[in-house]
């Protein structure tokens, strides 16, 4: 028996040591929001937060996460009120099929916290001067979200969603709309 704290609730599970956190969430707890894309740490669809940090739930064993605070996509909204990052994905067309979306959103929530805490990335020009949310460049957002692939290639909308959630003004989705709406 192992005990996991997921979205604020303590859950008791009977799983073998080889069961990954992702499989425990999906198969044992019915939390199917976290997706299995590759199951090998190569796509980001299974991203969840552990003690506030984003990780791939397919690359960690459930038994290793006893006692940690695990947050999945199901735990982000407050009742019917979406998390601001969830709302930003809707406002900016940050998805198409939606399969990568729970992972993208969990990763983006963590990304904003990381920037608030002064984190740097491979593309940060000066490692002693971390970027602020208000001036977080598109290059920074893309590098920091590179661990989440989107097979539908909704990347423009995803970047815009992160810009909105950062307090920036993303370009209107209509700006790149090729067709003209007929009313």
């Amino acid at each position: 028996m192992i005990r996991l704290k997921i979205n604020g609730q303590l859950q008791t599970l009977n799983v073998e040591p080889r069961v990954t956190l992702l499989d425990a969430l999906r198969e044992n707890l019915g939390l199917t929001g976290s997706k299995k894309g590759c199951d090998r740490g190569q796509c980001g669809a299974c991203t969840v937060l552990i003690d506030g940090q984003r990780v791939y739930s397919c690359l960690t064993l459930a038994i290793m996460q006893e006692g940690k605070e695990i947050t999945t996509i199901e735990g982000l909204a407050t009742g019917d009120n979406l998390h601001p990052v969830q709302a930003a994905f809707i406002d900016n067309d940050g998805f198409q099929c939606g399969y990568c979306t729970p992972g993208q959103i969990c990763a983006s929530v963590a990304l904003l916290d990381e920037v608030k805490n002064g984190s740097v990335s491979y593309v940060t020009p000066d490692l002693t001067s971390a970027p602020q949310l208000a001036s977080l460049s598109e290059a920074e957002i893309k590098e920091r979200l590179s661990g989440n692939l989107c097979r539908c290639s909704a990347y423009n909308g995803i970047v815009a969603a992160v810009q909105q959630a950062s307090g920036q003004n993303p370009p209107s989705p209509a700006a790149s709309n090729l067709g003209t709406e007929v009313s």
Partner: protein
Amino acid sequence: MNNFAYVRANSVEDAVSRASQDSNVMYIAGGTNLVDRMKGFLDEPSQLVDVSRLAMKKIERTQEGGLKIGALVTNTDLAGCAEVRSNYPMLSRSILAGASQQIRNMATVGGNLMQRTRCPYYYDTAFACNKRQPNTGCPAATGINRTHAILGASESCVAVNPSDMCVALAALDAEVKVRGVAGERQIPFVDFHRLPGNTPNRDTNLEPGELITAVILPPVSFAKSGVYLKLRDRASYAFALISVAAALELSGEQIKNARVALGGVAHKPWRATEAEEFLKGKRADKSTFSQAAEIALKDAKPLAHNQFKVKLSKRAISRALSVSARGGGVV
């Protein structure tokens, strides 16, 4: 993956004694490499000793003025450490160039040192592989070997070490502190990983059951000029085709000291010591840098599909040195 017994180590001694009793016992830290390997049936341990909760998570200043980095410090915490960012930027950047934020959050220093090659033949149990199973053969030597070694390979293995962080640690003359049943010892970084020879099944000189407890970084006055250049098939979240860690100490136009190490070219992080010696006393200019690059690659033996790595490495060395000569930053 096959099932295994799981225990959480409650002390370094406890972990070492468990792993020293039985060669089928393995340590697990962040899990980002081992879980992947177990899924592919590359490793089938009978027992996992979870060391992730041991007290080896601190970065401390050493008496010499360097840093002692606990083996369980995450890749994220090491790259983000203020002292590392300002005094060893090549180390920060090498880590930030690797994997993704999600992986770096879980990955530990010890696990990064011990991660195994990404050779596709090693990864696919349908193929023979001397690294996976000694004396079965090396299909990569005659197969698709675009990502494989150009330096220091042998007939039995042409795989490369995949780590970015280790390239910077090699350039910085780090040392690896390990603990076994017989006690503690410290291994110079360049002697930690091995060339394949005819025992490619051994990546490192760790003895069975030994646990990495820390990495020691000596003070390197000119490490502030350090850079890390990684070249890969896509801009992020991909292993290196080749990479360069470089730093220069200048006195006016003249080079006093140099560090150059390469990733993605050999079975271990490749320190280009002959090129470093050549650089000393020379003028810091383009022609010096490209001569150093020629020296660093003079023994290269490319395979059928990776000739491109030779020229790519030379140009990357020149570029990394030029940026370091200007004081460092993004290459």
